[in-house]
């Protein structure tokens, strides 16, 4: 939280100075102009990385800020994605522009989050985690079975690129987005920057402090007047809204929703791992966690495979000799080593939120 860590209390009125965000943002924004590969396939992969970073930040609001173990974040990701797809695909009559569809995706996902949260407010710890896990499965199965609405296993598509049929200064934006991956790169980066600054503000706000108080000790928070139920509802709504935004971007960048299994438990757990690896409750930590885990998965592994083939170590393309055949093993090893030597995460918060939400019965006095 944006609070002084030196002893001078009066400095607490000022925000912690922006140290890394702005330089990082500028660097990421100009990178595609300087690094040619970002204008090609790599650019698309990094875009996906940004989108997953947004999703992981959404999860961080639940697990890191509020201390609610959420195992179904991918479902809200999917709800946002499908909403955007339904509103934009040409086979359906809506044909909304991207900005409107993104807004709707955020709103619908937030609504779904509230719907999940409202009946479960009195649950704690493990019980709530099980409910979110179930919610994720229910949404996945519903997406699969509502075939008329969601296209079943085929999913919905083609989702038009942002700015389709929009011309500014003689540039056909829709075409540009298709031809040049850098446009989407910048769009995703802008969304990520907006989410990061929004969450920074949240951390230092009254609501953010209430969330932290609920995470630290729900009963004590209630005893000083924090409306625990409403704070949790807000956390669910905010987290779901951000996940919905990520889903909308994801679907638009793939130009299809893909099949519902894209939004399954595995994705939720991958995000949870990224948040834990980076440090619970920490925004830079979450970004680092995503960069390492997802970056490893989508950027590094394919490149390592290509390299192995190039140097002639794996000419037959066998999966045992390829790097991506081993990626899950590497992944598991990294997590085990992390938990042994740095359980609080790579870039933990000063407040030491680096522990998972307590098990079920942290309760009655």
């Amino acid at each position, binding site marked *: *939280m944006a*609070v*002084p*860590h*030196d*002893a*001078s*209390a*009066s400095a*607490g*009125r000022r925000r912690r100075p922006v140290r890394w965000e702005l330089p990082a943002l500028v660097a990421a924004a100009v990178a595609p102009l300087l690094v040619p590969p970002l204008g090609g396939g790599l650019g698309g992969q990094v875009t996906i990385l940004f989108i997953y970073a947004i999703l992981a930040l959404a999860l961080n609001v639940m697990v890191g800020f509020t201390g609610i173990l959420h195992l179904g974040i991918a479902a809200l990701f999917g709800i946002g994605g499908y909403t955007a797809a339904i509103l934009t695909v040409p*086979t*359906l*009559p809506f044909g909304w522009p991207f900005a409107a569809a993104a807004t709707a995706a955020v709103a619908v996902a937030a609504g779904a989050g509230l*719907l999940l949260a*409202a*009946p479960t*407010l*009195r649950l704690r710890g493990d019980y709530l985690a099980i409910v979110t896990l179930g919610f994720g499965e229910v949404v996945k199965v519903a997406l699969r*079975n*509502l*075939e*008329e*609405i969601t296209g079943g296993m085929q999913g919905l598509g083609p989702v038009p690129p942002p700015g389709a049929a929009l011309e500014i200064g003689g540039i056909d934006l829709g075409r540009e987005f298709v031809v040049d991956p850098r446009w989407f790169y910048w769009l995703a980066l802008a969304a990520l920057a907006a989410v990061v600054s929004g969450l920074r503000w949240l951390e230092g706000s*009254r609501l953010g*402090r*209430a969330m*932290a*108080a609920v*995470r*630290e*000790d729900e*009963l*004590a*928070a*209630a*005893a*000083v*007047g*924090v*409306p*625990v*139920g409403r704070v949790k509802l807000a956390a669910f709504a905010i987290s779901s809204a951000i996940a919905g935004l990520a889903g909308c971007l994801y679907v638009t960048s793939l130009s299809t929703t893909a099949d519902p299994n894209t939004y399954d438990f595995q994705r939720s757990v991958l995000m949870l791992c990224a948040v834990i690896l980076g440090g619970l409750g920490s925004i830079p930590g979450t970004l680092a966690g995503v960069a390492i885990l997802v970056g490893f998965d989508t950027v590094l592994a394919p490149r390592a495979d290509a390299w192995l083939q190039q140097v002639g170590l794996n000419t037959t393309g066998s999966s045992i000799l390829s790097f991506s055949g081993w990626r899950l093993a590497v992944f598991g090893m990294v997590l085990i080593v992390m938990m042994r030597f740095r359980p609080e995460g790579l870039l933990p918060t*000063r*407040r*030491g*939120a680096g522990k998972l939400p307590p098990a079920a019965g942290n309760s*009655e*006095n």
Partner: protein
Amino acid sequence: MVRFPRRRRDRSLEQTAADPLLSVDRLTVRFGGLVAVADLDLDVEQGAIASLIGPNGAGKTTAFNCISGINRPTRGTVRLDGRRVARPFTPVAFWGIVAIGLLTGLLVAAVAIDIDGVWLAVVKRPMAAGEPPRAATLGRRLRSYFRWELAVDRLGASWRVVTPDGREVVAIRRSREDASRLRDALQAAVTARRAGPGTVPEATDFGDAADAVHAVDGEVLDRLAAGKRAIRLRGWTALAAGWLVGAAGGYAVWRRGRRSPEVVAAAGIARTFQNIRLFEGMTALENVRVGLDWGHRGSRRIDDPEQVATEILAKVGLAGEAGRRAGELAYGDRRRLEIARALATRPRLLLLDEPTAGMNPAETAAVAELIRQIRDSGVTVLLIEHHMQTVMRVSDRVSVLDHGVKIAEGTPREIRRDERVIKAYLGEAEA
């Protein structure tokens, strides 16, 4: 005490002052077979320091938990300023419960009427037919769905006459015209079966399509005719049932939250815990800020919370620790921080549960002094304490609990001499 009607009491300041700030009336708590607190009556005067003492397991903390909304009493009431501490049933709560019921009902109904089928009928079928749905035609298509009227769907090269949800195929034709004509004839036959002959064109009016209608089993037509009734019955039943469940659930949640700790804190009663419960990961300053942020709703707005928080910390002697994490503080400082956090809610009544437990004599004396200062600043204090010297020194009034029953009440001097109290603490003499 003379009881004045509420109207009079409100008018006269003096009468209000004479009423107890906190009044606990016949409070009883049972845990299964165990009676933790039995018929406890307790009044705390405005501006006093009252103490609740008793041997271990006497029910002191349970009584505290009931007052602060953590436990629900089996029976009895807790009043602050003559009013029960509970959230009132406002119109907002009422309409909220109604809306939750409605939302639940709509969700259940969406399942019952097959929302997927509605989507097909209202959005996808018109798209496939090349006439994108508009707001103007939306109502007509919805009505058609809920009348369970037959429709025509395309599958590959064939055209099928289907139920509106597209799940049951009644007939298959090669061309769209054939299928449409058959659909109209079938629909006429179905409607005639439902509404009785003469109300709509007979199937025979449709020429050669009529033969095809005769080829369809009468039972199928009957089933299709019953479709309208069935889907409406399903929809309304689901809506009503969902509404009932949702509203009941909403009401139950609202009711259970009526006297929750946050409501009590918002009404102006703050507390500390016997086993310190701080927000360990947050700084001392942040702990106090949370209290300031929420806390007592009736109190004045604070313009500069950071400044006030610092002042409160200084008041309890933690000025130098503002930026340290609560979990890192020394034991005595943690107890003080908990008091600071409770004070930050600007309470009218402060409940302290063993604030000097585990402290050395010097620290204990300092806390006793702090309690007196808190009282002098206008906050009434109710204290649970084992340290008799502290209790006797600071209290204006002492109540003694034993096995959940109040056995004595009075000034410290009276309590010290009371035989029942001595017996409860020391046991009965053998001889």
